[in-house]
C-alpha cells in the first residue's frame, strides 16, 4: 500500500483545474453553497441545543404533575409535605403558573408566581424576590415582566399597568414594577413574574391547589430513586426529570435536522447527476490533452490518480470554503432567515445569541456528506477518460 504522493501530479491537477476556469468555478460555487447550507443547519441546531441544555440545567431536577383523564391537572399543595419526607429530597416547592392568552396581540405570556420568603427554584427569581415587592399593598399589585412582554404591552398602550381578564369576565389591574433579566434570553422573554396570590386570582386557582411541584435532590445520582418513590406515593402523577428533558431535546433536534437532511438528499442526488454529466462531457481539447499525455508515456493509473487529485482538491477546497462561510454566517451574523426554521414563528419569539460551539463531529458529518459523494460521481467519467486510446484522440 505504498501510494506515494506525487507532487508533480498534484501540480498538474491544480493547473488543470485553473485551466478550465468556468467549469471549475461552477462546481466550486454549487458545492460551496451546498456545504454551506448543510453546515449552517447543523451549527444552528448544535447551538440551540447547547442553549437549551444549559437552560435545562437551571430548571428544577424533578417536576411532579398530576394527571387526570390523561390531562394535566392541578395538584394538591399538601403533597409537598409528603414529598419532603422522602430521604434525599432537599427541597420541594409548589409552583403556580400558567399561560395567559393576550388576544389583542395574539400571544401567550408565561405567568409565573413566586412568594417572597420562599426558597426560589430558580436563581433569577431570587433576584426578583429581593429586588421587588410583589405583595399586595393598598389593593394594588405589581408584576415584573420580560423584555418581549414589555414591548408587546407597550404596543397596546399598556405602559404602567396591565388588565388581566379573569375567568368570570372581570378585570384585574396589575402594575408593571420593572423588567427582569435572566441568564439566558430563552427563559425570560415571554415571562411575567408576580405573586402567587395574584395568579390564583387571575386564573381562579384554589388556595389548596398548585400547578405542579418541583423537587430538589441534593445528590443528582439519587434522582431516579426519588422519582420512583414519588411515583409510589402518587400513582396519578407524571414525573419529569431534567435528564428526560435533555434526551427529548436531543431527539427533537436530531429529528429536525434529520428531516432537513432527508430533504437535502434530493439536492445531493441532483448534484451527483450534474457532476457526473459535467465530467463526462469532454471537449475535444481535453481529449487531445489525455491523448498527448498517454502518448508521452502516462499510464492509465497515472491519469486516474491525476483525476482523483483534481476532484479531491476541488471538492475539499469547496468544502473548506463552505464551512468557513457558514462559521461566519452562523456565529458572526447570527444566521438570519435560517434560524427561524428552528426557533419558530411567534410574536414573542425569543431572540437569542447563538453561542459558539466548536463541534468536530459536525465537520466530519458534513465532510462525509460532500467530498466522498463528489469523488464518487467522478469515478466513472475519470475512468472513461483515462482509458481513451492515444492514437484515436490525437488523430
Amino acid at each position, binding site marked *: *500500500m*505504498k*501510494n506515494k504522493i506525487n507532487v508533480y501530479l498534484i501540480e498538474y491537477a491544480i493547473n488543470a483545474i485553473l485551466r478550465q476556469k468556468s467549469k471549475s468555478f461552477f462546481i466550486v460555487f454549487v458545492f460551496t453553497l451546498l456545504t454551506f447550507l448543510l453546515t449552517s443547519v*447543523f451549527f444552528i441546531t448544535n447551538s440551540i441545543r447547547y442553549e437549551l441544555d444549559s437552560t435545562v440545567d437551571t430548571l428544577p431536577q424533578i417536576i411532579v404533575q398530576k394527571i387526570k383523564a390523561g390531562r394535566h391537572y392541578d395538584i394538591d399543595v399538601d403533597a409537598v409535605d409528603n414529598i419532603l419526607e422522602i430521604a434525599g429530597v432537599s427541597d420541594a416547592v409548589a409552583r403556580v403558573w400558567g399561560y395567559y392568552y393576550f388576544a389583542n396581540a395574539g400571544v401567550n405570556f408565561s405567568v409565573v408566581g413566586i412568594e417572597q420568603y420562599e426558597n426560589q427554584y430558580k436563581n433569577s427569581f431570587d433576584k426578583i424576590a429581593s429586588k421587588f415587592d410583589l405583595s399586595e399593598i393598598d389593593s394594588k399589585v405589581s408584576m415584573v415582566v420580560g423584555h418581549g412582554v414589555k414591548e408587546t404591552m407597550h404596543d397596546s398602550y399598556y405602559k404602567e399597568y396591565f388588565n388581566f381578564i379573569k375567568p368570570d369576565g372581570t378585570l384585574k389591574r396589575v402594575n408593571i414594577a420593572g423588567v427582569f433579566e435572566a441568564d439566558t434570553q430563552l427563559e425570560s422573554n415571554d415571562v411575567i413574574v408576580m405573586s402567587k396570590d395574584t395568579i390564583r386570582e387571575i386564573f381562579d386557582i384554589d388556595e389548596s391547589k398548585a400547578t405542579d411541584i418541583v423537587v430538589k435532590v441534593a445528590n443528582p445520582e439519587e434522582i431516579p430513586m426519588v422519582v420512583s418513590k414519588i411515583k409510589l406515593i402518587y400513582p396519578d402523577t407524571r414525573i419529569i426529570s431534567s435528564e428526560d428533558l435533555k*434526551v427529548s431535546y*436531543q*431527539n427533537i433536534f*436530531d*429529528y429536525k*435536522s*434529520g428531516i432537513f*437532511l*432527508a430533504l437535502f*438528499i434530493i439536492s*445531493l442526488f441532483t448534484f451527483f447527476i450534474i457532476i457526473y454529466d459535467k465530467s463526462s462531457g469532454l471537449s475535444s481539447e481535453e481529449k487531445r490533452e489525455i491523448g498527448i499525455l498517454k502518448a508521452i508515456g502516462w499510464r*492509465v*493509473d497515472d491519469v*486516474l490518480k491525476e483525476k482523483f487529485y483534481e476532484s479531491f482538491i476541488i471538492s475539499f477546497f469547496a468544502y473548506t470554503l463552505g464551512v468557513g462561510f457558514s462559521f461566519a454566517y452562523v456565529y458572526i451574523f447570527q444566521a438570519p432567515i435560517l434560524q427561524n426554521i428552528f426557533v419558530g414563528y411567534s410574536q414573542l419569539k425569543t431572540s437569542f445569541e447563538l453561542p459558539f460551539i466548536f463541534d468536530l*463531529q459536525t465537520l*466530519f*458529518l458534513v465532510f*462525509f*456528506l460532500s467530498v*466522498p*459523494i463528489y*469523488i*464518487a460521481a467522478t*469515478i*466513472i467519467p*475519470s*475512468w472513461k477518460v*483515462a*482509458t481513451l486510446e492515444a492514437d484515436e484522440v490525437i488523430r
Partner: protein
Amino acid sequence: MILTPEVLAILILNAIFAFFGIIAFVLSVRIFLAWDLNSVSQSQYILEKQSFLTATIIKYIFVIKVPLFLFFIFTLDKISNVLTGAMCAAGVVDATVYGTYLFMLKILNIYIFAYWLVLHNEDIKHENQPYTKIKFGIFIVAFFLFISELILEGIMFSSIDIDKMVSCCGTLYSSSATSAISSIFAIDTDVLLYVFYGNFAFIILFYFLKQKYLFAISNLVFIISSIVSLIVFFGTYIYELPTHHCPFCFLQSDYYYVGYLIYALLFIGTFYGLVTGFVKNSKENIIKNYKISMLFNFLYVILLSLYPIVFYIKNGVWL
C-alpha cells in the same frame, strides 16, 4: 427506528457503496471468468480496461470505509445519549441482536479490503499481472461480506428502539454477565498476561528468524490475545477502575480518545504481520512489512504496558 443526521449520512454513503460495489462485482465476475492475458481478442482488451475501473472503485470504497468506521463508532457513542441505560457504544451495539455481528463483520471487511489493496499493488507492479484472477476472485467473496455488512447496518439502525432499556457496558463486560463475553473473565489474569507477552515474544522471535508463515500466524493469534487482555486486564488500568472492562469507553473524550490510537496501532501492526505470510512480495518489501508490523506491535505493547506501570508508580499498588 433511529434517524439522526449521522445515521442518515452513513446510510447515504452505504447506498453509494452498494451502487459502486455492484458495478465492481459484475465486472469482477466477468474478469474472473474470462481473463486470459495471452489472448489478443477484443474482449480481453476491454476486460483489461475494466479492471482499472474495478480497482479504482474498490480503492475508493476502502479509502472512505476506514474513516467511516471511526465515524460509525463516533455515531454509536452519540446515540448512546438517547438510549436509556447506554453510556457508550457498547450499549448501542448490544441494543439489537445484530450489533455484535455487524461489528465483527466491519472489522473483518476492513482486513479483507486492506489485504485486497496490498495484493493489487503487488499485482500492478508486475508486467504480466500474476494475481489478477485471484484478486478479483477474492473481491467476489468480499463483495458478499460487504453487502451483508451494509444490509445488517441498515437493519440494525432501523431496529433500535429508543424507548427500550439497554445494558450499560459496566454490566455487559463483567464476570456476572451471562453473555459469551463474560466467559473470558474466567481466565486467570496471570495466565492471560503470560499468553499475551509470550505471544509477543514469539512475534519478536519469528521476526529475527524471518519465518514468515509463523510470523503471520502469531500475528493472527496476537489479535485475539491482545483484545482479550485489553478487556480483562489493561482496560481496568486505563480507567483506573478494577471493575470497568469496557472496550469502547476509552474511545471517548474522557480518556483523550486513546482508544483510537490503541486500535490503530493494533490494526496496522497485525495487518502487516499477516501480509508477510499471505502475499508473495519482493525481498525488500517483505523486510519492510516485517519492520512496519514489528514497530506497530511494539508500540502497542509499550503503550498498554505503560498504563499499569504508571498506575503502580503513582499509587504503589496493583489493581
